[in-house]
């Protein structure tokens, strides 16, 4: 219950569009091999191009909005992500390891925005959450 509090109190202050865009951009910059999933996104040739790419921003927003759904349903994350899991496996063919990478990046983005407010206890709660989300997304793989 305490952890849920830590999660929702940070989440309430997050700008989903900005944060989502930043997290996805960083994924593509820090782990360039992830660009393989986004060949239709246009110019990903440099960090500046990636950060400014409108498709990256839009998709980042989509991904983080979906995260918001998990936060609204913390007791039922597996069900919330069942369909998305199938999608990522059957249509998108994304190696689940990438979910862990994005989760770690999201933590760093939150840390850079919230600084001292992103306490060790917050980090623990959020790291747990991104782990659960990554697991739920990988669940329907076959």
């Amino acid at each position, binding site marked *: 219950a305490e952890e849920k509090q830590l999660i929702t109190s940070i989440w309430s202050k997050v700008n989903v569009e900005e944060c989502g865009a930043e997290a996805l951009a960083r994924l593509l910059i*820090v782990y360039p091999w992830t660009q393989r999933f986004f060949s239709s996104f246009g110019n990903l040739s440099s960090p500046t191009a990636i950060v400014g790419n409108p498709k990256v921003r839009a998709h980042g927003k989509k991904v983080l909005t979906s995260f918001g759904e998990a936060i609204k349903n913390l007791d039922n994350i597996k069900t919330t992500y069942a369909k998305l899991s199938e999608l990522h496996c059957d249509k998108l063919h994304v190696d689940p390891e990438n979910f862990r990478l994005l989760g770690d990046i999201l933590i760093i983005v939150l840390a850079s925005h919230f600084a001292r407010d992103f306490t*060790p206890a917050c980090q623990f709660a959020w790291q747990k959450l991104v782990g659960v989300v990554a697991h739920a997304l990988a669940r329907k793989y076959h």
Partner: protein
Amino acid sequence: MLTAEEKKLICRFWDKVPQKDVFGAEALYRMFITYPQTKTYFPHFDLHHGSDQIRSHGKKVVTALDNAVKCLDNLGQALSELSSLHAYNLRVDPPRFALQLLSQCFQVVLAVHLGTEYTPEVHAAFDKFLSAVAAVLAEKYR
């Protein structure tokens, strides 16, 4: 492999880290809180926030990283003794995984302190650097 540009970024931003002693302790503490399994390597430590042992060990780790930053062209040599220590004495296991957790925590602390200055480019450079350090430390495992 670190590019020349990345080496420059690492040196520049490493110098911006305030109070390096505290920085090391903070990263270690966050690691113990966020990933409780890492506590298993320190059964002999007082792991409370601000403990002398965490502080002095954090300082040790940061000093080693400081040395690594000064020898970016030859991490293998700079970290050779530590590599033996981690492989034969400490046996932090699994070799790459646990060190990755500490790397994540160092990056969170960097992000907390540097805020928006922890740009995607700086983030990528440090992620690479810390991965390289972890790889060298894991080299002699078998």
